[in-house]
């Protein structure tokens, strides 16, 4: 018997996924470095288990814990394209044109980057 029900992720097609519009999180601060690259500062989120333990122990963090992430040139190009209005497919197209890449190669790079930013809670898809 299964104790914990496995979460089933909603299945969406590739075409549908590419129509989503990435939106930057409101909790982050971004800074432009001299090199033109972007430095993002974002709040650290406690893992659910760690958060529950801290709550039980009555530990409340006094200062807001943050992490920093510096994007490279390619990451900065994609980051600058995230305006909440462009879809993932539009971003891929612009990225491919800017760097003279094949669409397929650009798609792999951009989607991997967006997924990574999403995992860190820096953006969401709408």
């Amino acid at each position, binding site marked *: 018997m299964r104790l914990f029900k496995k979460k089933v992720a909603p299945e969406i097609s590739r075409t549908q996924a590419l129509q989503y519009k990435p939106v930057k999180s409101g909790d982050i601060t971004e800074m432009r470095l001299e090199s033109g690259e972007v430095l993002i500062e974002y709040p650290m989120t406690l893992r659910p288990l760690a958060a529950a333990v801290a709550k039980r122990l009555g530990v409340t963090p006094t200062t807001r814990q943050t992490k920093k992430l510096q994007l*490279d040139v*390619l990451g900065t*190009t994609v980051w600058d394209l995230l305006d909440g209005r462009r879809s993932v497919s539009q971003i891929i197209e612009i990225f491919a044109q800017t*760097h003279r890449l094949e669409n397929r190669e650009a798609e792999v*790079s951009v989607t991997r980057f967006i997924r990574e930013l999403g995992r860190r809670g820096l953006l969401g898809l709408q």
Partner: protein
Amino acid sequence: MKACKDVAWNSVHFQCPSEWQVDQIGKRHLRLGNGRGPVMEVKWGPVKGRFSHNAHLKRLAALNARRAKGRVVPWTLPDSWKAALADFETGGFQWQTTTAEGRGVSLYCPVCHNGSLIQFFRSTPDAAEKEFLAVLNSFRDHPDDGRIVWSVFDIRAKLPQILQLRRFRFDAGRFELEFTDGRQTIHLHRWAPAAALLGKGNLTRFAGTISEFSSGQPIVTTVNGHPGIQWSMGPPAGRPQWIVRLKPQLSFFWFRMWLLEEKNRIFGVRAASRHYLDEDQLNRICMDYETV
């Protein structure tokens, strides 16, 4: 037929619509899609002994057991397909599942003794019969001049048939193909986008950041009319050849890297061997290694 492009991989060579892209790639397997789903698949390999279409069909049915068991059935090829594949011994098949259907042909080439299996998926209704026929018309499974063309994604190379593909990787921004003929290994590299990778540096600095290219002293040169660097390394002078050959490690290394500024790509070729490297052969490989 719309604009078409060459797809060539491990002896197999054909033309397909330019919007078809390689979705899956193996040493002897290609699956192409058009962005909305798979369109075509081809598998091939050497056949030992006699070739039987029925045995091939049974194997195919077993391979597709999960998806389409019992649904792979023989199919009579239309005359247009037979004419397009006149150089091969052919046998048709078709299959159907709840979500997709397809038909294809198993081929046997009496010249090179290769067996191939080509199938077209019909889950994409816009895949036109004309396009399928054009693929079959252009399909070749062995080179005529002893040099194999490799043309996938945006790279194209032509290598002597003796060089066998050992491994490959196609990562975003970085491609690498490794070939060997038993005496030497030759690697083809491609990096993109060059402008972002180079930044304010040059090729020498970039080479220093790639572990496989980081040793040795690059010399600035021109490769196929493009700015490049080249260098080689060998065993210390004066050491007898037989000692060099007995050493388990490779002793001769050759590197070349060049920048295709207008295409925003960096190409690299490197070779390693226990024997002297054939520089003429390497020069020819570099000359035939390009972006499309």
